[in-house]
């Protein structure tokens, strides 16, 4: 009797466990499948979007009418962005497919620029038309290759989950696999990048490279001199403990990483400095800042004094924000009354004791130089004519900014209001082009204030 009950109980338990395990398994399976489905979707969408991108690029080549072209340009722009985002959804974080993404990005930038401008006044130049043709051919190649990979994936029933597992396990993708195929596509895209259309500015795009040019001929600082220079910059006593090492070689200039003890207490300053010229590129201090004892205004003056004492001439505060007990400021140098935004310096001041706890001067160091072309051809009144009539302009400055193609342009920086919003506009001071319009962000409500 007892035995029969035991057997019954155990049987029920066993079946129960079985059912439970089965359910668990099913759930996991379902999850894995949905995961796989997302990858599959992204991959097939990518192929689909590349196909369509090519179609639309072809259409835009053939179009004569401005209105039609607007449509296809905008469409290419949209599709290239979608394709770019599809790529982002594939588990490719571990393999370099960066060139394909870069290609898509270039197409998007180009078509966006062309789509938003008024081509009745500014038709496509010959160069641009040629560029469009190149994009068209390249899109054709990419989409052809990708379709081949896609066919393999479908024929061999390849699972992205398996690819992912292989990638994580770091096994080498064999020839003919999907990863291999995609990597080959990327190789091809690398070739496209070599005649990159937006790379011909002459002025290195990368701030790091510009800085490398600036410090090229400056005198070398050895470690001791660098530490001395750092102490001086931070205004700490000569005997403060310091630790110095070299920066890696991936940066176009040589540099030091320096840690200096804060004489007040336990915290460290961390900073990077160029080896040539001994120029601090950034500084930060790590310590908890909980109290607020001084105002943002005082802090901004402390930051301004700090810059003044270190020989940054004619800098103007253009933005200051308080985040609890921290003040963050942006300063720009001015020349001929123009604000030089590419040369901006960032300062951070603790509002408990007014210490400077952050500095970033890399952009200043890389970009600051004498600009010769700071006389606007347009008068302010002429620039104001370019502004939307509903916008009430309330403040104006001259400013040098880097526009969306990465070129420096002299602009009128205008602040105006429309309804309850404040807008910042940059109107090219030489030809009246609207270089940029931004709605200024308001404060962020504290949503959990209830």
């Amino acid at each position, binding site marked *: 009797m007892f035995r029969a009950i035991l057997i019954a109980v155990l049987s029920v338990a066993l079946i129960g466990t079985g059912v439970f395990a089965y359910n668990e398994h099913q759930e996991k399976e379902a999850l894995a499948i949905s995961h796989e489905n997302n990858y599959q979707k992204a991959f097939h969408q990518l192929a689909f979007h590349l196909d369509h991108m090519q179609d639309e690029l072809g259409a835009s080549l053939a179009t004569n009418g401005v209105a039609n072209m607007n449509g296809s340009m905008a469409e290419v722009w949209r599709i290239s962005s979608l394709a770019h985002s599809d790529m982002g959804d594939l588990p490719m974080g571990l393999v370099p497919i960066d060139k394909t993404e870069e290609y898509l990005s270039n197409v998007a930038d180009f078509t966006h620029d062309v789509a938003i401008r008024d081509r009745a006044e500014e038709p496509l130049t010959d160069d641009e038309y040629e560029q469009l043709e190149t994009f068209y051919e390249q899109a054709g190649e990419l989409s052809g290759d990708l379709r081949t990979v896609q066919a393999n994936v479908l024929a061999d029933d390849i699972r992205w989950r398996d690819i992912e597992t292989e990638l*994580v396990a770091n096994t080498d993708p064999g020839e003919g696999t999907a990863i291999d195929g995609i990597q080959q596509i990327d190789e091809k895209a690398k070739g496209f990048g070599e005649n990159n259309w937006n790379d011909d500015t002459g002025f290195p795009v990368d701030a790091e490279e510009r800085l490398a040019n600036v410090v090229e001929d400056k005198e070398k600082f050895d470690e001791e001199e660098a530490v001395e220079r750092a102490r001086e910059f931070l205004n700490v006593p000569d005997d403060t403990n310091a630790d110095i090492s070299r920066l890696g070689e991936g940066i176009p200039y040589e540099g030091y990483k320096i840690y200096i003890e804060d004489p007040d207490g336990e915290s460290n300053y961390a900073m990077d400095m160029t080896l040539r010229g001994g120029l601090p590129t950034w500084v930060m201090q790590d310590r908890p800042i909980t109290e607020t004892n001084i105002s943002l205004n005082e802090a901004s003056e402390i930051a301004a004094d700090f810059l003044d004492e270190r020989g940054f001439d004619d800098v103007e505060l253009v933005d200051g924000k308080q985040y609890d007990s921290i003040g963050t400021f942006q300063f720009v140098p001015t020349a001929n009354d123009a604000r030089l935004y590419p040369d901006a310096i960032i300062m951070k001041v603790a509002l408990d004791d007014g210490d400077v706890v952050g500095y970033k001067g890399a952009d200043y160091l890389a970009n600051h130089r004498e600009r010769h072309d700071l006389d606007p051809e347009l008068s302010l009144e002429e620039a104001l004519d370019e502004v939307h009539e509903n916008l009430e302009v309330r403040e104006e400055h001259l400013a040098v900014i880097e526009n969306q193609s990465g070129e420096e342009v002299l602009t009128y920086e205008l602040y105006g209001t429309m309804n309850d919003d404040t807008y910042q506009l940059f109107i090219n001071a030489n030809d009246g082009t609207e270089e940029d319009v931004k709605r200024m962000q308001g404060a962020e409500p504290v949503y959990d204030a209830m």
Partner: protein
Amino acid sequence: MEGSVRYFLATLIVVGGVLGFATDRGEAFSDQIIQQGATGDDVVELQARLQYIGYFDQTIDGVFGWSTYWGVREYQEAFGMEVDGLVGEQLKNRLEETTEYDEQHVQEALENAREFTHYGSTPNEIQKGPKGSGEAEEEQAPEAEEEPSGEEPPAPEETADEEEPAPEPEAEEGAQPDTGGEQPDEGQDDQANVQKAMNAPEGYSDNDIQIMANAVYGEARGEPYEGMVAVAAVIINRTDDPEFPDTANEVIFEPRAFTAVADGQIYLEPDEEAREAVLDAINGQDPSNGAAYYYNPETATSEWIFSRDVHTEIGKHVFAD
């Protein structure tokens, strides 16, 4: 960094001064010059007082943003002051003389995210006494008027939206914020015009910052602060890089991009430091010096990652391009 002792002393003096004077004057404005970007009680008072006379018609939120700035400038222009958007002593004195400010009432509404406005038609009889020197306002007739008013004459103009009387303050208007304890909810049924807020960096919402803080905390907790800033900077560098998606969200959730996302550590509650690191990075700090990748050489599995050029090493992480 420099002369911190000096600043500390200066701070002591300022704080002492604020406490001392403020109590004497029975006013809440501290001695600070208030400028754009500031947050806190002085800004609340400034907004409330400007609203009282119709120079500010937006939400009282304690953040000196653009609309407060324009309000201050209009006011300065109307009263023949230097138009610089800075709220100094002269402006504060004038505001104190011509407007009323029921600090407790406003602060409480702010704390409780209550809906209310602070136009100058509040019946004052149940308050213990007139505040500031607000004699002139009492007889002004309320009129519904939301305009921020470029044309406001020197006499404080009443604008309106009735407002429930403030709950009885238990003490004099204090010099310090938050003097009031619990107060019963009076029905405040005007439009939502008071809400606590904070500064957000241009181009990012607080939710963006939160997600980034989650990622940074998941990836770099236990690392030095600059290492956390560097991780946040890498996320931002990627958004600027044509090889990566264009938003922080997409970069973070790109499959296999970050281990903390893959293993779910991104869902840990980040600490304040991670948040601050994100803010620093958004505001332009980049200890990685432009890197788009980083890895822990002890745990990294991908051969490929080791082939990248190293920018810098911070803590356990190597930053590369």
